[in-house]
């Protein structure tokens, strides 16, 4: 058992890399280009069929994605330049607001799965007593806190958490090395093995304890069939292709299982110590200039790679949107002939000019810089990141729960066309029913609509690390049998998550996700169970409402 547990604890640690958003599969993207044409023909958009493809093909060449290019662009735009003095800041604001807006949306898109995960854990803790009592211990926690002395327990907990943390750190470094050395097979094998373990062994354990808790008889053929189906479908969903909802469901369940394992096998104080320690490690690993996770993600971006699909939760927002380039040979009339109110065409032109101008410079700068392939990739990266138009929430994570937002920062330091892009995204999203918008917004970029194509699905990704440790916190809190504590922890963690995302939007620099939430969670957990609980119990016993 220990062996399994150890393996599985280490394994999600390997999900350090969180690449750019097309994590689901690169091939998916490649395969999706043809249908664009098809679709377009079906929808017979105003623009001709080839331009989008050409567009996509020219994506690499469109490399002016540096904020450095911005003044040139401003000067470049003739009419647009004049018009740009005012729009500049306004666009600045727009950018802000889009960031926050999608922030808002995606905060919710994170809230739901996180809450679900917590729900599973709390329900299990309260219904299956097996997960409530620690009798077997992990390999990593040699001190079992058996003495009644608080001081002894304290140093036991600290020692345990130190050991555990060092294991985690080692795993991370090992992963970095593997990744630098491009041993993808090893890493993938690792991931598959660990998810296999979770999906089969721990699910088996879970099923057994569930049935035992309710004293339900079951025969082996049925049990084996259930396990086999559940496990294989899970492997397919996580490592291959399956409906998104299914994949999300599996990931949530796996995270919940993992959290339950921690709750079950960590001694009481150690669990709290580990929570504290891990959030600190989180800070270090992300914020320190040579933090391992930062290194990881940076390499990932240099290589322009997708992350490992396993154990990264991705909630998908559908953006019908394509790259933000504008091919000069494309005749303007197509846009003017686009279905839009005539009064908006002026603004349209302005935007188009402002859009049209950079591209030559772009080509130049790209050719000039073509030598530096690394940089080129990076910028292409930016471009893609921009294309995702999903900046704020696309921060990533590994099991240590490191909110990694390198990609995000780049996206945010991206330049005007990104913003225009985002404005377009926004328009599109509003049309695709994600929200209601007033008409004046729509007019601005109507002309670009024809060019906007369904690209592959984009979404926020949150490493299961957060899920797991949030759930551990809440589960631990609920294991004391007091619901007010549980609720307090829950609210505190969600608020922490909100704050993290907010700071992410404001500071535009990589921030870890755990520290704020976990700190809030811990403070509220202990404060509630120590101070608030007696008060509330006194009140509710006397039926006094405040």
């Amino acid at each position, binding site marked *: 058992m220990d062996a399994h547990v150890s393996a599985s604890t280490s394994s999600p640690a390997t999900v350090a890399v969180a690449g750019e958003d097309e994590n689901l599969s690169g091939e998916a993207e490649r395969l999706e280009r043809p249908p664009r044409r098809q679709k377009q023909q079906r929808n017979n958009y105003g623009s001709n069929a080839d331009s989008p493809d050409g567009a996509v093909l020219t994506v690499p060449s469109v490399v002016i994605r540096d904020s450095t290019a911005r003044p040139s662009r401003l000067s470049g735009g003739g009419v647009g330049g004049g018009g740009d003095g005012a729009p500049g800041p306004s666009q600045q604001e727009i950018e802000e607001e889009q960031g926050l807006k999608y922030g*808002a949306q995606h905060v919710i898109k994170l809230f739901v799965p996180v809450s679900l995960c917590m729900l599973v854990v709390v329900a299990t803790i309260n219904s299956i007593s097996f997960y409530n009592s620690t009798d077997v211990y992990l390999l990593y926690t040699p001190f079992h806190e058996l003495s009644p002395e608080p001081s002894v327990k304290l140093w036991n907990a600290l020692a345990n958490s130190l050991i555990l943390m060092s294991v985690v750190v080692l795993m991370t470094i090992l992963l970095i090395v593997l990744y630098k050395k491009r041993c993808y097979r090893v890493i993938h094998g690792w991931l598959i093995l660990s998810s296999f373990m979770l999906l089969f062994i721990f699910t088996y354990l879970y099923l057994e304890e569930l049935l035992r808790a309710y004293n339900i008889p079951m025969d082996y053929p049925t049990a084996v069939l259930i396990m086999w189906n559940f496990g294989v479908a899970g492997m397919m969903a996580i490592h291959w292709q399956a409906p998104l909802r299914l994949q999300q469901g599996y990931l949530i369940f796996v995270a919940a299982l993992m959290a339950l394992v921690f709750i079950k096998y960590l001694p009481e104080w150690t669990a709290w110590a580990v929570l504290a320690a891990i959030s600190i490690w989180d800070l270090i690993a992300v914020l320190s200039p040579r933090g391992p996770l930062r290194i990881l993600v940076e390499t990932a971006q240099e290589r322009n790679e997708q992350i490992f699909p396993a154990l990264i939760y991705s909630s998908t927002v559908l953006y019908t949107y394509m790259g933000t380039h504008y091919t000069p040979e494309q005749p303007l009339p197509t846009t003017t002939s686009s279905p839009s109110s005539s009064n908006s065409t002026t603004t349209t032109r302005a935007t188009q000019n402002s859009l049209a101008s950079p591209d030559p410079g772009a080509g130049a700068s790209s050719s000039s810089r073509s030598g530096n392939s690394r940089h080129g990739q990076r910028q292409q990266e930016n471009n893609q990141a921009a294309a995702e138009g999903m900046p704020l929430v696309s921060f990533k994570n590994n099991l240590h729960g490191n909110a990694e937002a390198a990609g995000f920062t780049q996206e945010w330091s991206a330049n005007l066309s990104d913003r225009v892009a985002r404005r377009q995204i926004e328009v599109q999203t509003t049309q695709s029913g994600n*929200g209601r918008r007033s008409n004046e917004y729509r007019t601005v970029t109507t002309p670009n609509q024809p060019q906007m194509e369904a690209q592959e699905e984009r979404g926020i990704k949150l490493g299961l690390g957060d899920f797991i440790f949030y759930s551990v916190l809440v589960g631990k809190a609920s294991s004391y049998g007091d619901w007010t504590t549980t609720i307090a922890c829950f609210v505190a963690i969600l608020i922490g998550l*909100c704050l993290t995302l907010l700071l992410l939007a404001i500071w535009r620099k990589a921030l870890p996700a755990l520290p704020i939430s976990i700190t809030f969670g811990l403070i509220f957990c202990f404060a509630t169970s120590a*101070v*608030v609980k007696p008060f509330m119990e006194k009140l509710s016993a*006397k039926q006094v409402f*405040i």
Partner: protein
Amino acid sequence: MTLPEFFGCTLLAFGPPFSLFVFTIANDPVRIIILIAAAFFWLLSLLLSSLLWFAVVPLQDVLAFGVVFSVLFQECFRYIIYRILRSTEQGLHAVAEDTRVTENKHILAYVSGLGFGIISGMFALVNVLADMAGPGTMGLKGGTELFFITSAAQALAIILLHTFWSIIFFNAFDTNNYLHIAYVMGSHLFVSLLTLLNADAHYWATLLPSYIVTVLTGVLAFKVAGGSARSAKRFIMCQ
């Protein structure tokens, strides 16, 4: 197992807030976030008040003391969240999916009020509900079997009251209407202190007045939010 009791009380206390949430909050991420933020602030206020209660050992059995101060703390935090929301209005206006959130100031008030109400209702009731799921009911050592249903009803009243109070309160600060502020504080104090009577099972003495207050506050909030008898009539007439 008196699960029926459990579900009955749960639906009674949290059914209306739930439907409010479903129909008015759930579609707008910004509102959800504001709701949770409000809940968080209420938690802070509760934490402070219970710290006070905890610190002042001699008065720990005098609940009135704790109640009064927690009411004050809650109103303080209501004010704080008011300031915060108003100061971030610009941002919100930009962020909001659905601009009514900002253009109709009452929605902010309503959402945060609901947040206050739901969390306070939960804190007051959730442990009682958990105990309700057992095989027994109240009344073995004192206490009547009305305990649960009355608790649930009271909780519902409190949840609604918090919502109304926030609407009135926010608007009052917008329009410097100190009367309304006083009313909010007063009614909150009144209701909370009134529930002290529950200890002696004077349920009608507490429930009736607090529901009357709820209705009054509701009407006031309705007016404040721009409703009027005429509009109500139009509404009912379905025009």
